[in-house]
């Protein structure tokens, strides 16, 4: 029973990593660049929601507040692409890596200046509610909501990419920008749209993360763990990101419980390096090496 409880907590944590990783994957799918500021976008999303929802701030009802925050963060994501990332369009991938790292610092500064550096708690209706699944097996409402939301969001996004015209256009733009452009796809606009989408996903991740504890501007560093998730799942695969996140969450939880101290910090990264060595494209690989 204890093990099941442990694994459940691990899965819920892993879903958060999976959600952040979804944001990476979205942007990777569209422009084959990695947004190193994704963790910080999640942090900003959580703070924007806090600004709308908390009683001492704007005191909106919870769900409309989250929706509004999603809207705001969507605009932020769109704006980041329109005004910053588009500036490095057509430059080597490396440029975008550095740009988004710098952007992460800027976002952290913005959040710290507006909301302060001390931990704050987002007021959610999920707080303190526990669901009894079986005798001795309880799951907190926040964990349950995290798991359900993550699965639903992953399925929705997967359907969006596989079934809709816009999703196909995004995939086309990511596979060959020039060819997609010739086919009449507005590549730049599509890219901005994906950034907006990843801003929204980041907000959802942020809210779910905040439901489980306090937030401060440095939680964006969680993004590094989400990298591990994205890499293990294979960049560019939506279900892979989720699977990777859950794997990281499970490993972390079990290592923390059964391993010596310090191992739980290292385990996700060690696993990620192993995956990179033996399956360079991740478990859900989508890249084949170019042969000469």
């Amino acid at each position: 029973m204890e093990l099941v409880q442990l694994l459940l907590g691990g899965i819920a944590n892993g879903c958060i990593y999976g959600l952040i990783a979804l944001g990476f994957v979205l942007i990777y799918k569209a422009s084959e660049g990695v947004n190193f500021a994704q963790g910080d976008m999640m942090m900003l999303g959580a703070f924007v929601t806090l600004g709308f929802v908390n009683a001492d701030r704007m005191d909106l009802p919870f769900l409309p507040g989250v929706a509004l925050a999603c809207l705001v963060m969507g605009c932020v994501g769109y704006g980041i692409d329109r005004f910053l990332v588009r500036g490095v369009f057509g430059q080597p991938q490396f440029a975008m890596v550095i740009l988004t790292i710098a952007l992460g610092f800027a976002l952290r500064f913005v959040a710290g200046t507006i909301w302060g550096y001390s931990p704050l708690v987002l007021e959610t209706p999920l707080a303190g509610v526990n669901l009894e699944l079986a005798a001795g097996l309880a799951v907190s409402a926040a964990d349950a909501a995290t798991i359900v939301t993550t699965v639903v969001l992953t399925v929705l996004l997967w359907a969006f990419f596989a079934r809709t015209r816009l999703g196909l256009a995004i995939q086309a733009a990511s596979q060959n920008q020039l060819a997609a452009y010739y086919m009449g796809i507005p590549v730049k606009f599509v890219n901005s749209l994906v950034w907006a989408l990843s801003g929204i996903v980041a907000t959802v991740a942020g809210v779910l993360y905040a439901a489980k504890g306090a937030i401060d501007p440095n939680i964006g560093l969680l993004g590094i763990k989400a990298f591990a998730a994205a890499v293990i799942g294979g960049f560019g695969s939506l279900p892979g990101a989720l699977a990777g996140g859950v794997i990281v969450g499970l490993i972390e939880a079990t290592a923390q419980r059964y391993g010596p101290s310090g191992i739980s910090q290292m385990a996700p990264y060690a696993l990620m390096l192993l995956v990179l060595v033996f399956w360079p494209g991740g478990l859900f690989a989508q890249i084949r090496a170019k042969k000469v």
Partner: protein
Amino acid sequence: MRFIFKTSYDRDIDLFEDGWHRARIAALLAVLVALPFLLGEYYLAEATNLLIWSLAGMGLMLLVGHSGQVSLGHAAFLAIGAYTDAALMHCGLPWPVAFAAAGLVSGLFGALVAIPAIRMSGIYLAIATLALFVLVEEAVILAEPITGGIGGIMAPPIQLFGISFERYGALANFYWLCLGVVAAVTLAYANLLRSPTGRAFMAVRDSEVSARALGINVARTKTLAFGLSCAATGLAGSLMGHFLGFFNYEAFSIFISINLLLVVTIGGLGFIQGAFLGAILIAAVPQVLSILRDVSGIDTSGYPGLETVVFAAILIGFIIYEPMGLYGRWLKIRTFFDLFPLCRRDMFRRQKSYLKTERMR
């Protein structure tokens, strides 16, 4: 404008363009050697710090700028260098041995890491090095008997032939020591770039496929680049350890990695000079900020992290508007005056490369 008439191959690959170039470098070196007599204690310490940063920057420049591999974890190699040096000196070995060992250990570790890393490219490599950095950081905390764990470790003062090179007691000596190391590494680096190995690095950077077609062993070249880069960074780490005097794992945080990346990007990717220019910028920004604060009288204590955000803004500005960095900008200005009425705006325009992926879905 002036044409240099080259009459032999040796003349063509000479380190210096002409006598004037040679004289300028000599003058720069002379000024640097005389610096302890010109500057006060505080600014001399800053200059030493700058030299160490340029050394680390050169390490990363070799990797990012000249062989096209991105590393976000170079602080790990700084840490390895610093801890190797301190641990060996605590065992009673003299400094030159510990220093060489620091370079060797980080270089070997780097080459070892490169064996899986060279199979990745671009983003994957960046993330793998980031993971490596986290692993090394945790390992440093766990390996308490060697590294002192969270508490940290003291770098013993350097003594050579009865002369003290201690950072606080004999700063000028320590400065000259760093200058010597930096000058030697710079010379080696410049020579490397005109050797077949250095050319192979650049060929691999520009196109792996065509480099392979020309008979370059890509895996070996990349591993070598990784090893050399990490060795240089390890040397810098060892000096940094002595400069700090007492350090723990926090001295080599992820921000150091990112600052290093900042050094090479802002300085100008692919130019040795870029590492120095970037290091100057890194060292100057906090000074300028504090001077501005004193002059303007604005209280910035309510905005922690202001320095970082200024760095971030500079970085974003450079990436978008001047991807060639400070040295690239200087080259453009120089060309403008060299060719005076004939310079055209598009002379430095870069070919844009649009994404074409090998993904299946």
